[in-house]
């Protein structure tokens, strides 16, 4: 006798994170799976919330950068810059050229370090630990320079309104000149390891595709947006600092998939290296901070007003909206964090893909949870 049994298949809810090695911190994804295919995904954030915006309202201006270093903790220089920019705009300060060039050099180095970290993490998500070691090896070389400059490896607290806190030590420029060829070599190593790797391409091509239009509507920015072919780089479209004097290209992807997001970042490392090389050649002498302001103003008061300053961070547009009522503390400080906005597209990108793809998509967006939760 043939016994026929009807099996019922049900969708399985599954919790990815906050304790999952591939969620890049403490992101939690509540997924509904059909087999291994994702039907619905619901990102839950807030596990790293430290109320930076609210705390800032109760801090004097010179204390706020400490918190900003801890937003996107792998690119601290870049975070400090828009804050200083906002304050400079309200004060009407001009930054001396050496200060600007030092900012550009440090921020671009930080972008390189951040992208190398992305390379390591992305490869690790894909299943090779080698990329992790390669990426971190290159990043470590840059971290040593940062330590030489600011005294700290990650939380630099170096960019101040009017310039930078102090001049770089004498040995910084020769050390950086010696480092640049090493970094080019390291970038080559990383590219050789993964960029053309058949397995990686197979894993990430056509995974998590988003068109340029859609990407804009979701508020994506930075490499994640440029991977969809949108020419949007604040360093060029809304030039600030000395970027107009420097020669570099915007890297654009074509497909807007995970592979292009990876590829754009790797190409951007090369562009940033070019920028550092040029900036180093043109590095003028002179002051690093506007005279008149003490090194660390005990009581920096901003005039009444409001402003929005933004800059191109490794992860996208980092903006600071600052309202001052004339005191030594901001009335309101709003942070536009690129990781947070990029994360908005996550459910749309993941839908219909497999569980393994979800990890790659999340990796390709390169979110830092410290910045998402703030």
């Amino acid at each position, binding site marked *: 006798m043939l016994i026929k049994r009807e099996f019922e298949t049900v969708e399985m809810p599954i919790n990815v994170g906050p304790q999952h090695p591939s969620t890049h911190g403490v992101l939690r994804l509540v997924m509904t799976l059909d087999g291994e295919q994702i*039907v619905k995904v619901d990102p839950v954030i807030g596990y790293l919330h430290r109320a930076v915006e609210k705390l800032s309202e109760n801090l004097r201006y010179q204390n706020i950068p400490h918190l900003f270093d801890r937003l996107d903790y792998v690119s601290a220089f870049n975070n400090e810059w828009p804050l200083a920019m906002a304050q400079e705009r309200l004060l009407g300060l001009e930054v001396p050229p050496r200060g600007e060039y030092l900012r550009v050099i440090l921020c671009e180095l930080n972008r390189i370090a951040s992208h190398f970290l992305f390379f390591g993490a992305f490869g690790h998500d894909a299943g090779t630990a080698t990329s992790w070691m390669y990426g971190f090896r290159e990043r470590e070389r840059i971290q040593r320079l940062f330590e030489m400059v600011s005294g700290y490896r990650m939380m630099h607290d170096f960019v101040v309104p009017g310039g930078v806190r102090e001049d770089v030590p004498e040995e910084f420029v020769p050390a950086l000149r010696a480092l640049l060829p090493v970094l080019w070599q390291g970038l080559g190593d990383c590219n050789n390891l993964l960029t053309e790797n058949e397995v990686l391409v197979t894993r990430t091509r056509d995974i998590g595709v988003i068109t340029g239009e859609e990407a804009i509507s979701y508020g994506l920015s930075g490499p994640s947006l440029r991977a969809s072919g949108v020419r949007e780089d604040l360093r060029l479209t809304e030039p600030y600092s000395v970027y107009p004097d420097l020669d570099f290209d915007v890297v654009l992807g074509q497909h807007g998939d995970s592979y292009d997001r990876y590829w754009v970042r790797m190409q951007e490392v090369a562009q940033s290296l070019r920028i550092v090389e040029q900036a180093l050649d043109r590095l003028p002498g002179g002051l690093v901070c506007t005279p008149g302001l003490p090194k660390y103003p005990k009581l920096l008061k901003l005039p009444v007003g409001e402003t929005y300053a933004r800059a191109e961070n490794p992860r996208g547009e980092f903006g600071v909206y600052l309202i001052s009522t004339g005191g030594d503390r901001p009335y309101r400080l709003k942070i536009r964090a690129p990781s947070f906005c990029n994360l908005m597209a996550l459910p749309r990108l993941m839908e219909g893909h497999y569980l393994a793809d979800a990890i790659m998509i999340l990796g390709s967006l390169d979110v830092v949870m410290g910045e998402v939760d703030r």
Partner: protein
Amino acid sequence: MDLLVTLAVLTLQIVLLFNVVMFIVLALVWLERKVLGRVHQRMGPMRVGPHGTLQSLADGIKLLLKEDLAPSSAERFAFLLAPLLVFAPSFLVFVAIPFTRDIVVRNLALGLVYFVAVSSLSTVGMVLAGWSSSNKYALIGAARTAAQLISYEIPLVLVVLSVAMLGGTLDLRGLVESQGQAGPYVLWQPLGALIFIMAALAEVFRPPFDIPVAESEVLGGPMIEYSGMRWGLFFMAEYGNAFAFSALFVLLFLGGWQGPLLPPILWFLLKTSAVILVFFWMRAAMPRLRIDQLMGFAWEVLLPFAFLNLFLTGVVQLYRWPLWSLSLLSLTGLLALGYVVERGRVTWRRSPSLAS
């Protein structure tokens, strides 16, 4: 009395074999960590013993001393049994592996069949572990394990079969000896050797086919809830299997223990180490495939080519063509395989769409 003697000898053999397997596993773990370390541009273990040689022993002791936890929601009996079911087959295959002509526990007339049959039994343990853990990641891992092992078993068996056709025997010792006259079969069946290596990588969950235990996706899959020595059993099974399949590759394709000058056992270990180093190298250099791509690769690329390999061997055997013609045909097949993978536009690279 006779029975007692037989039992005593058997027990002694088993204990000896167990020790050999343990030693091999510990040595392999150390070797892998060293090799990976070198590729990663770091030292690997250096502290315990000279160049960290005792590190795996220390890790083993640590695992033994750790608490053996079982989740309260787990299916207790199955949960505790599963690691044994995974480890036992990987230990049992060593019974049939001839290290040299004389160093072998039991040389079976159907050694090849025994090897393939027993080694695939560990699937049961993995699925049981995944199911009984009452953990969703473990369940996904178990489903992946079952799918992957069944898919890769078939090309593997087909390749093994074609080797048996060449050698005219299923006896592992006989196969090696037939290679003494004909030369290592890797020369005559390069296509088969490549398919075997890929299927073996998938069989023992080595990267790029470590999908069931992918730690960045399913956090170790079926092993996720295990701790202490029960987890250690999975670990030992994995490395035992890796060694066993490398040894099988050496026996089937590289002429086993035969070689000039050096003693046979040394030749065998040298060749096996070389194959294992390839496994480690793959781990260092390759990201992981996705499960559907892996399955597509098995069914749409490996399986047809395994059949082709079998067919070519059969034709050459049937018409009694010289062996070098098989070599040529096989190389052509290898090029075709390379072409298919390089083109890569066959369906196994298709991106998924949500089933309606």
